[in-house]
């Protein structure tokens, strides 16, 4: 009897698992296994929703696995169904309609959801999150040229939609409770550059600002603050953090971490404490490549790599995962900002360069000869002409020895290319593959023989 794989969650992690199972079966000439996908929503990419809001792509562009593709890949798709309870002893999942699915192994990839800060009035009309496609549609339907928009939260997720809001002709104010913007993506110096850039582009920024309540006022929203004048807005978007979707696992015997943000601790094969149950993506507490500690990354590349490793292991291979590199990139009004690895680390040796008049910033963090983190910020024109963003990733990821180059990089943090090339970083990276084999084109096999 073929193995029965159950994939709970149709996001990046779940779909990469499915694709990898089918790739492995095809490459190794195996019979197709049974794959059941349980997805609360029709599969789409959250990563591209900002472009849907912007209007540069249509709704159809966001879908990642249309029904025809799932049929071609021989996936039994239970779309619109949510997982309710997992019985790991009987290997049975109960759905929200009380149907049950039996499995041999199971992936938990239920992702996370937006969490509104506990502000009185946050549940009222005109106060939105921007996380799911449905939430995106609400914002698209509401926002109009001249709309006054207040964004509560100035983290990475908030920043991914700033361009779209501005492109729609809205007037934007960003409100952040922390003393600076992008508190979990860049350091103080970089945040200062980005804030000035935003203000120069007619975006109002209020940091260290605590919203005390949101009231409905004649079809608009009135935000009051602990300090400072109230603001009236047509539309409020809250990007105040995420929560993992794991409540349904209570009583299953699958361990979840008690400290925030929760998550399922996994081993280097992405297995939970229950051997037949894997976890991937935002719900998995996996290894950080640089520090070796287990943590939830909640970024797209981690979900994608997790999913592929799970798929290979579900197909019967023995693939250990080295760990995930924290990394983010975001652009607002043609200013690009990216960070890699441990970009804030009191124990690291720091080389920084600030060119305030050009809005450029670099930060390199070393442990001995090894680059362990980096921050880069600059106008898009400069960043993409230099084009060494990826090299910073390569240096952090490979851990190549830069001892000979440290003096040069301390004096010239903007001159990374010769150090990258002459340190044989390419030779170090070329044998590296996540699955121990060349990757395949992402189009799933169009036919799966059963």
């Amino acid at each position, binding site marked *: 009897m073929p193995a029965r794989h159950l994939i709970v969650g149709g996001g990046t992690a779940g779909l990469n698992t499915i694709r990898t199972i089918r790739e492995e079966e095809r490459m190794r000439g195996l019979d197709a296994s049974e794959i059941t996908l349980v997805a609360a929503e029709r599969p789409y990419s959250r990563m591209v929703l900002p472009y849907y809001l912007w209007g540069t792509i249509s709704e159809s562009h966001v879908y990642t696995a249309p029904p025809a593709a799932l049929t071609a890949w021989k996936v039994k798709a239970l779309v619109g169904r949510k997982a309710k309870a997992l019985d790991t002893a009987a290997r049975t999942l109960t759905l929200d309609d009380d149907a049950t699915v039996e499995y041999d192994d199971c992936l938990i990839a239920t992702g996370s959801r937006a969490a509104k800060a506990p502000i009185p009035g946050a549940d009222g009309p005109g106060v939105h999150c921007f996380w799911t496609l449905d939430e995106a549609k609400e914002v698209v339907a509401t926002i109009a040229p001249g709309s006054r928009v207040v964004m509560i939260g100035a983290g990475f997720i908030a920043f991914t939609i700033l361009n779209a809001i501005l492109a729609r002709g809205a007037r934007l104010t960003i409100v952040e409770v922390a003393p600076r913007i992008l508190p979990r993506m860049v350091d103080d110096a970089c945040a200062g550059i980005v804030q000035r850039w935003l203000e120069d582009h007619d975006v109002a920024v209020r940091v260290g600002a605590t919203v005390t309540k949101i009231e409905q006022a004649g079809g608009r929203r009135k935000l009051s603050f602990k300090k400072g004048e109230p603001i009236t807005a047509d539309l409020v978007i809250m990007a105040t953090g995420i929560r993992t979707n794991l409540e349904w696992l209570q009583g299953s015997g699958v361990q979840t971490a008690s400290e925030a943000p929760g998550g399922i601790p996994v081993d280097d094969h992405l297995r939970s404490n229950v051997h037949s149950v894997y976890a991937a993506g935002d719900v998995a507490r996996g290894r950080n490549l640089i520090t070796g500690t287990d943590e939830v990354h909640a970024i*797209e590349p981690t979900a994608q790599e997790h999913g592929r490793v799970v798929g290979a292991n579900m197909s019967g291979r023995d693939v250990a995962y080295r760990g995930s590199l924290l990394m983010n990139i975001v652009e607002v009004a043609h200013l690009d900002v990216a960070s890699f690895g441990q970009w804030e680390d009191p124990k690291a040796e720091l080389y920084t360069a600030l060119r305030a008049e050009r809005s450029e910033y670099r930060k390199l963090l070393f442990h001995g000869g090894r680059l362990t983190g980096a921050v880069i910020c600059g106008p898009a024109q400069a960043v993409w002409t230099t084009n060494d963003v*990826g090299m910073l990733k390569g240096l952090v990821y490979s851990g190549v020895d830069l001892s000979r180059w440290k003096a*040069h990089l301390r*004096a010239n943090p903007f001159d990374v290319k010769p150090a990258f090339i002459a340190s044989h970083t390419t030779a170090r990276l*070329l044998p590296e593959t996540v699955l121990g084999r060349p990757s395949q084109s992402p189009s799933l096999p169009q036919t799966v023989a059963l």
Partner: protein
Amino acid sequence: MQTGQFQPSKSVIRVSPFEGYTSYAPYTCTQCAEGWCMTACPVGAIQINVAGAKDVIDDTCVGCKLCTIACPYGTMFYDGDTQKAYKCNLCGGAPACASACPTQAITFEEAETADWIGDFAAERTARVLTLEPR
């Protein structure tokens, strides 16, 4: 080639100067086995073309730049005019850089991917590094 423009700042093959601009070496995508750009793309916009090169499907790319931070070689590019990513696609099997090079410093042949300028760069930077203040 890839952007349809005569614009060195948009070239997908970059020439790095060494030894105070007295020697040069071209650097471009190795078409690595992992294909970090390809596996990172959230919408499957990077695929393997007939030449075996990873190639951006323009109509599918949304311009999210995830590939530019996923590629550890610095050989993914972003075009601010089109708001899309682009890269060396080996010109579909007839690389223009190889046919344009007047000294045959660039040739196109079937071979394993390799770090073709690491040794050269290490040698050509060694002396300069010893002259820098420490």
